[in-house]
């Protein structure tokens, strides 16, 4: 009987000192914590605006590899409220590992087209981006399909980043959805045979290579075009290329998203809901899409002038969940074709 208070006292002491160490972790009620796959500087302006409007402070950690793992390990003690990601596969991974909770909100459902959100409301897209084809200007205006990457007339003329980059895996997954596994493997092998050099570098590097006459065709996300145009040094690279929206006469261009979801054990649920709804407001959509030169997911919000100047396009209407389903298979095919080697 006499022992218990002593144990309790010493435990109290231990925990008091522990909470002293961990004081930055203890949550004040007017905060919301974000785990972000997106760079901090892309989301900061938006969060500042949110804080201005609501007085809720936003804490952010940016990381890519292992974010889901960290969240899973933290379990119910995780401080995370909101997860911001790029690429559909990461949202699906979070969903499949049961790290998200559904949030049904009229504002979200009304404004986000159904192909860009989860059936069970566990995740929502915020912006979309196209996997474009960049082509050398001397080729003139071309009508390009992703299937043409395997056309032997482009032998030695194509540049791309690693086949195993998330953006390319998603594209291959969409090819599987359209053509099946066997045909996609053949396409990958021919595509590989057309490469001017081993897959390397990033999307901008491929445009630079076209500018230097190393190749004529490259794959790249839409927003990189805008980012290069606004970068003093890289602007000259874009002078050499046209940006093309592929498959306009059939299924449409492959589109990926950046999105959000609420963490399963979000400690600041109210604030998290407020932040999610804020991110889909017209103002936030405009600002968010503009900072990274993407397309707002809301159809009633126009992209920035620069992005709009690349023209309207038809997007592949394949639900993103289908693309995500073929992801692992896509990666296996890329290994099989030894695309990167």
């Amino acid at each position, binding site marked *: 009987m006499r022992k218990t208070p002593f144990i309790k006292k010493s435990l109290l002491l231990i925990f008091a000192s522990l909470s002293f160490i961990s004081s930055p972790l203890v949550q004040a009620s007017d905060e919301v*914590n974000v785990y972000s796959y997106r760079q901090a500087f892309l989301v900061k302006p938006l969060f500042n605006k949110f804080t201005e409007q609501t007085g809720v402070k936003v804490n952010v950690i940016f990381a890519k590899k*292992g974010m889901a793992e960290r969240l899973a390990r933290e379990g119910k003690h995780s401080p995370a409220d909101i997860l911001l990601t790029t690429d559909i596969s990461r949202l699906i991974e979070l969903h499949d590992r049961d790290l998200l909770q559904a949030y049904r909100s009229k504002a979200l459902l009304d404004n986000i087209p159904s192909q860009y959100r989860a059936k069970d409301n566990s995740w929502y897209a915020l912006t979309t981006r196209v996997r474009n084809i960049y082509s050398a200007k001397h080729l003139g205006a071309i009508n390009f399909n992703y299937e043409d990457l395997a056309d032997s007339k482009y032998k030695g003329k194509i540049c791309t980043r690693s086949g195993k980059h998330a953006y390319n895996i998603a594209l291959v997954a969409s090819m599987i959805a359209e053509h099946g596994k066997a045909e996609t493997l053949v396409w990958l092998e021919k595509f590989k045979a057309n490469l001017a050099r081993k897959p390397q570098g990033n999307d901008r590097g491929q445009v630079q290579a076209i500018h230097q006459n190393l190749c004529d065709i490259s794959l790249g996300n839409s927003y990189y075009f805008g980012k290069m145009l606004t970068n003093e040094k890289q602007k000259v690279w874009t002078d050499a290329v046209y940006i093309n929206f592929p498959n306009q006469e059939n299924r449409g261009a492959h589109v990926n998203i950046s999105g959000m979801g609420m963490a399963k054990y979000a400690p600041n649920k109210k604030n998290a809901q407020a932040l999610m709804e804020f991110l889909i407001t017209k103002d936030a959509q405009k600002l968010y899409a503009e900072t990274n030169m993407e397309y707002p997911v809301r159809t009633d919000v126009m992209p920035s002038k620069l992005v709009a100047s690349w023209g309207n396009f038809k997007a592949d209407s394949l639900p993103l969940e289908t693309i995500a389903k073929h992801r692992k298979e896509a990666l296996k095919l890329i290994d099989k074709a030894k695309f990167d080697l």
Partner: protein
Amino acid sequence: MLLASFGSSSHLFSHLWQTVLPDYIINTLLLGVLVVCLSLAFGIFSAAFIVHTNVFSKKFLRWLLLLPLAMPAYLVAYLYTDMFDYAGPIQRILRGWFGWQSPEDYWFFDIRTLPGAAIVISLVLFPYVYMLARTAFEQQDQTLLRAGRLLGLTTKQSFFKLALPLARPAIAVSASLVLMETLADFATVNYFAVNTLTTAIYDTWLGYGELATANALASILMLIIFFVVVAEQRARVGQSHQSNRPNQHIEIIKLSFIQQFFVSGFCWCLVLAGFLFPFILLVIMAIEYSDLAQLTKLITPSINSLEVSFYAATIATTLALLFSLYRRLSINKWRILPITVAGFGYAVPGTVLAMALLATFGPLDHYMNDLAEHFQLNPPGLVLSGTIFAIVFAFVVRFAAIANGTISSGIEQIPHSIDHAPASLGVGLGGMLSKVHLPILKPSILVAWLLVFVESMKELPAALLLRPFNFETLSIQIYQLISDEILEQGALSAILIVLLGLVPIIWLNRSKELT
């Protein structure tokens, strides 16, 4: 990690084996062998020249050759691939001069290849070999070399037959550090578009979502290293050399003019390629793209970097000292175990290590919180896995091998007779250690501390994954900018990492000169 690799998928493994894994393994082995050979060549020769010849500007070269250590490998890789790429400035200028139009018009080496990667990695890793070899050469018993000379060996013979074999323990330690660092690397080889076993580890984990299989692959990687290190140790069983005549006069070979040209040219090329050239590129970028306002933003990350690295270096060095002394003075037959086990963290890729730590501390944190709730106390939160504790712990685990290697090769140089002398004079263990061993070991302790500190400043993947909210280090800042494909704006942070890493190198060098 080993535990976690149970339950790995044999299906995925066989898929990898049938497709890309054999290529990855060949690449990994080739890369390891090439980097170790090149680093040894760079490090041993430069160390020998500095210690045994009157090479031009020796006083500067002595510490300049250490500077590449302060350069993060991923940064140098980024700069070099950018520079020598087809679209890079060097080839552009050449095309401009000679009027070449396309790659068919001329030949230029392709930087994004395995040899390209090996050369660049060696350029930043060779200082390990240089540093340990130089210390070994300087502390060697010079009378042995003189005796060899009297028996008719030429200078060359006496170096290869005496000095080099005598320095073998130190060189072996440094070579295994270089090997481990190379095999654990992901970011650098990624820039070079070279696929290695770490590529497979990342693919299985992030691409296929099979952490268990990824852990199994990482364990294979560690096994390879384990066998190499053990084989090397076996090969030198029975060889031992201890010097009890330190600080004697070292004979200096006078070089002829032509020799002087080649020898100093060799050393300066290393300094230039491993440090000065990339550093100048960074400075040019910083001047072009940065302003003073950016500098103020770097204060907090700098303090964070320094703080974490300071803790990591101090803890790792203390532990290494304890382990080494235990191994030396204990008669327990398992005495070698702690230091050997502690050494393998270096071979684990930072991200994989971070995962393993989350797996360890996560449940502990949960247990503590549950306990707190049980006693109706305020739950402390994720104190272990969600604070800088985790980062420091990761750094200590990852860089323990460096501290251990440096200190134990220092201890090996102390003759065993010294262990017994104080005891026979009636001095206790504590007195012996503080009066005899620690003063002798002081240079090794400083070197160990410095190496861990510099490595921690540069470390990226573990810090990125384990950090708490709003906690940024310099390397994290650089990573964010590189991953958005605008390194230019990160040039200032990069320069800061390098400069902060230089401070202890220079300070250490000065304090060594004084003693």
